C-alpha cells in the first residue's frame, strides 16, 4: 500500500508494457454497449472505411489502462484515484506493443494529494493518449 510520506516528485509509475488483442478490443466494445453501433472498435473493414488504420481501442479502454497504472501503484486499501483527465492524440491500435508511463509531478501536503502524468506510447515512442491523474491519500 502506497503511503503519502513515501511519495516523491519524480517517482516513476510502471512502465506497464502490454498488447491489447483485437478480440479483447471487440469484447470491451461489446460489453460497453457500443460494439454494434461503432464498427471501428470491432470490424476491420468498417474501421478502414472511416479512414482509420484498422480497429482501434475505445477511448474508455485507454482510460481504463491508464487508470490501472495508477491504481496498481496505489495498491490496496489506502489512497484513491479521484480524478483523471485525458487527451486522445492518436488512435490506439490493438496488436501493437504499448507502454504506459507515469510520473509523480506534484505533491500537495495541504490536501494530501499527488498529481501524476500518464501516457500510452507505441513502439515508435509516439504518445497516443496523454493525461493527468490526482490521487488523494487518507488524512
Amino acid at each position, binding site marked *: 500500500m502506497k503511503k503519502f510520506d513515501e511519495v516523491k*516528485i*519524480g517517482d516513476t509509475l510502471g512502465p506497464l508494457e502490454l498488447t491489447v488483442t483485437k478480440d479483447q478490443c471487440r469484447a470491451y466494445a461489446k460489453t460497453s454497449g457500443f460494439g454494434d453501433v461503432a464498427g471501428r472498435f470491432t470490424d476491420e473493414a468498417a474501421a478502414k472505411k472511416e479512414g482509420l488504420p484498422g480497429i482501434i481501442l475505445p477511448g474508455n479502454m485507454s482510460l481504463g489502462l491508464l487508470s490501472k497504472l495508477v491504481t496498481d501503484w496505489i495498491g490496496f486499501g489506502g489512497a484513491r484515484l479521484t480524478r483523471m*483527465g485525458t*487527451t486522445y*492524440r*492518436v488512435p490506439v491500435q490493438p496488436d501493437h506493443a504499448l507502454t504506459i508511463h507515469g*510520473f509523480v*509531478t*506534484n505533491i500537495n501536503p495541504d490536501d494530501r494529494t499527488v*498529481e501524476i*502524468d500518464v*501516457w500510452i506510447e507505441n513502439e*515508435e*515512442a*509516439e*504518445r497516443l493518449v*496523454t493525461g*493527468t491523474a490526482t490521487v488523494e491519500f487518507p488524512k
Partner: protein
Amino acid sequence: MTTTLDLHTHSEASEDSRAPVEAYLNWIKLRHVERPVDGIVLTEHRQFNREADYRPLEDKFGIMVLRASEVETNYGHMLVFGVNDDMLARFDFANIRLDAQTVIDEVARMGGIVVPCHPGRPNIGLYEHYESKPPLEHVVAVEALNGGSRKGEDARADELISKFGYASTGGSDSHLVSLIGLCATRFSAYIKDIDGLVRELKTGAYEAVDFRPRRKVVPHAVAVETR
C-alpha cells in the same frame, strides 16, 4: 556562454494543459542532467498574458521564464516571440484564421519574430500548406524538433529546412509537466530576456537540440548524449 531554451511550452493557462509553471521549473531542476535547459518560453494557445509575473519563480529556481504565444493561421500554427501592445492591438490572437504572411510581416515590423511550429504535422503544419499554396516570405526559422512529433513529422520539417534554408529551433510543446525540456534551442549567445531572445532568433545562428530518451536522426538537429 551558450543559452539553451525550450521555446515551445504550454502551462495551465492553455485550455489543453494542466501543468503549473512552478511544477515545470521543479521538473527541470530535477532532470537538469538529462535536459539541461536554462529557461522556458510559455507559448499559450491564442493568447498572451501581459500581466503574468514569473520573477519570483525565476528567482526561486534559477530558471528563466519568458512569454510568447502560439497563434493559428492559414498556414498552420506559429509561435510569436516579442509580443507587445502594438501586436495585441493589431491582431486578435484568438482568431484561428489569421493571415500568416500578414502576421509574419507585421510582427517583424513591430519588433518581434514569428516561427512556424511543428511544420511537419498534418493540417496545422507548414509542410502540408506548402503543397497547395506558395511558400511564405520572410520566414527566418521553423521548429525543426517538436517534443510531440509523430514519426516522420520532424523529417518533413527537415525537408523544408533543406529546401528553403530556414534556421532550426526546438521546443518540447509540452502540455504535461514531465515532458518539459525534451527538445530545445541552443544559442551561442547569453540571453537574459525576451528582447535578447528575439534579437538572437533573427540572426538564425542557433540549433535545435534533442533531449528525448529515444532520439531520432534529424540532420539539422544536434543529438545530445544525456546518459
